[in-house]
């Protein structure tokens, strides 16, 4: 195996011919050899990768429209939506992006990593159907409740604020569906191991996917611990929900679930480094231990949401913010080195060895799979990572909690980081799994730059506005009609305008992603042999 990069001719042909390679466990007639990469693709897995990816992109579009409406409302000069619809759209945006889009896509990533990279079939088509249908039904219920105004409770639905019981039931169905998908992934790993479809240790990308899967199980159990009692409370079975307990358990779900995104994103980084430039992992041990840290020190982030809460002591907050010396942060800092280093080493070996950054200049910036991945790495590290650790410092949270600094942070992790990485990998998923050529290739090549620019603007605008105290999830910075006059420094108008304009740019970038993807999947030229290289 050298490199999968289709631009490197003859790079792949030798793989299937290698007699020493272990054999796959595919059912007769239910697999194919990829003409581009030489990988064996299980056709059942392929179908579910496609279904989950399509559902993900639909949710991304819905969430994106909500995002644009929200951004244009927070831009004071436009102030588009009425208050009621603003709060409704914030709720819809959070749910459809942070839950629906990301998790549908992650299930697709897990099915890919468990089957294609391990030369295995998917463990159960039935389980995959049940998982997918539950996720679609659950997600649909949530969206319906929000859009009909029966769940104006924000993504967090902090009790005693109450939504319609079907809203909570929808979340539970979606979560159980996800859990079934994750278990199906683990079952796939099990049968691959049993049938000896791979030798020795699993590839690093699979290792990262397993990390994400393990964290997902832990997170979904926290989800059950909070959403099931809350659902019963909404049904009137349980009389009271303690607001502090709700917050504690909810964030046992809420923040570790972001660690799923981080683990999945980092896996996609390694995958794209390998596919686009033939990136080599410097030290397998280092990268794997760093993944392990995500599992072991995951709860770290849960406490970040309770740093200015009553009832949790300073000792508890400091301990839970930093226990084991920020080893989850260390893990991200390690990947932040090993991933670009894998690119640098590969490009230097290919002859781009001039100076400190000659390799960076010679990188394939016209390949959206590469540019999206590298921009994701930069935005996640330089904006997301730095702001996240700082805002999550116990005392510093006093000047950040519930201000726009918080969404300023997570739009650079979960959007500029995870979402952009998932977009980047789509430029290979569509030709290799859907076997369709992308139309509008010039737009594709530009897309990561437009989206990254828009998200960076949104993130900066929010962060600066938030440092003047501007509240998140807030309709009117003028406080019209309030009992006591209030307002912000005049400069926040500039920062909020940056959020609005950045929102337009990012939404443009989103459309530049969705339209070619839809065009390729439904109308793209069929690929029989090799995909056209980017």
């Amino acid at each position, binding site marked *: 195996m050298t490199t999968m990069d289709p631009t490197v001719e003859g790079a792949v042909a030798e793989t299937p011919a290698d007699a020493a390679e272990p054999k796959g466990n595919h059912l007769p007639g239910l697999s194919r050899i990829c003409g581009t990469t030489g990988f064996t693709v299980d056709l059942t897995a392929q179908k579910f990768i496609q279904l989950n990816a399509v559902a993900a992109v639909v949710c991304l579009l819905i969430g994106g429209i909500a995002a644009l409406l929200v951004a244009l409302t927070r831009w004071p000069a436009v102030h588009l939506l009425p208050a009621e619809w603003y709060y409704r759209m914030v709720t819809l945006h959070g749910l459809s992006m942070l839950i629906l889009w990301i998790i549908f896509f992650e299930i697709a990533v897990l099915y890919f990593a468990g089957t294609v990279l391990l030369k295995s079939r998917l463990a159960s088509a039935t389980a995959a159907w049940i998982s997918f249908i539950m996720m679609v039904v659950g997600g649909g219920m949530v969206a319906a409740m929000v859009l009909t105004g029966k769940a104006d409770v924000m993504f967090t639905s902090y009790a005693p604020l109450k939504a319609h019981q079907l809203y909570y039931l929808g979340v539970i169905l979606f979560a159980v569906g996800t859990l079934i998908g994750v278990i199906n992934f683990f079952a796939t790993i099990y049968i691959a191991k049993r049938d000896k479809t791979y030798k020795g240790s699993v590839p690093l990308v699979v290792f990262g996917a397993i990390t994400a899967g393990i964290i997902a199980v832990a997170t979904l159990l926290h989800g059950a611990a909070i959403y099931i009692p809350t659902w019963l409370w909404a049904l009137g079975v349980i009389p009271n929900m303690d607001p502090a307990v709700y917050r504690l358990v909810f964030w046992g779900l809420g923040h570790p679930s972001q660690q799923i995104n981080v683990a999945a994103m980092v896996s996609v980084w390694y995958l794209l480094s390998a596919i686009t430039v033939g990136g080599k992992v410097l030290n397998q041990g280092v990268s794997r231990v760093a993944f392990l840290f995500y599992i072991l020190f995951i709860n770290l982030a849960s406490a970040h949401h309770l740093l200015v809460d009553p009832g949790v002591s300073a000792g508890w907050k400091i301990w839970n913010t930093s226990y084991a010396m920020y080893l989850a942060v260390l893990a991200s800092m390690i990947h932040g080195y090993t991933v670009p280093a894998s690119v*640098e080493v590969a490009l230097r070996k290919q002859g781009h060895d001039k100076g400190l950054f000659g390799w960076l200049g010679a990188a394939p910036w016209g390949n959206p799979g590469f540019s999206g991945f590298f921009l994701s790495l930069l935005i996640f590290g330089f904006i997301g990572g730095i702001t996240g650790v700082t805002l999550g410092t116990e005392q510093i949270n006093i*000047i950040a909690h519930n201000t726009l600094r918080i969404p300023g942070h997570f739009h650079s992790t979960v959007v500029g980081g995870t979402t952009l990485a998932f977009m980047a990998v789509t430029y290979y998923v569509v030709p290799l799994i859907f076997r369709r050529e992308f139309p509008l290739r010039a737009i594709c090549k530009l897309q990561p730059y437009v989206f990254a620019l828009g998200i960076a603007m949104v993130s900066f605008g929010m962060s600066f506005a938030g440092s003047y105290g501007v509240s998140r999830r807030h309709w009117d910075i003028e406080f019209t009609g309030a009992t006591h006059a209030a307002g912000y420094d005049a400069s926040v108008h500039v920062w909020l305008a940056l959020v609005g304009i950045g929102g337009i740019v990012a939404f443009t970038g989103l459309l530049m992603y969705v339209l070619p993807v839809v065009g390729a999947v439904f109308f793209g030229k069929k690929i029989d042999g090799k995909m056209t290289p980017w």
Partner: protein
Amino acid sequence: MAKQEKAADVIEKESEHHGDEAHKAPGTFVLTLILLVSFAVYYFANWKALADVWHVR
């Protein structure tokens, strides 16, 4: 293309003799140092901003 093909062979060789030589990634190291410096500047600027607000326990 011919040049790249050759390059791919080099990677192949390298992955067979993994770890025989230290991997050189000086550019990445400089990038991460820039990250660390920006991190420290932002982090301590926030402590400074915190020190300016009302006292609270």
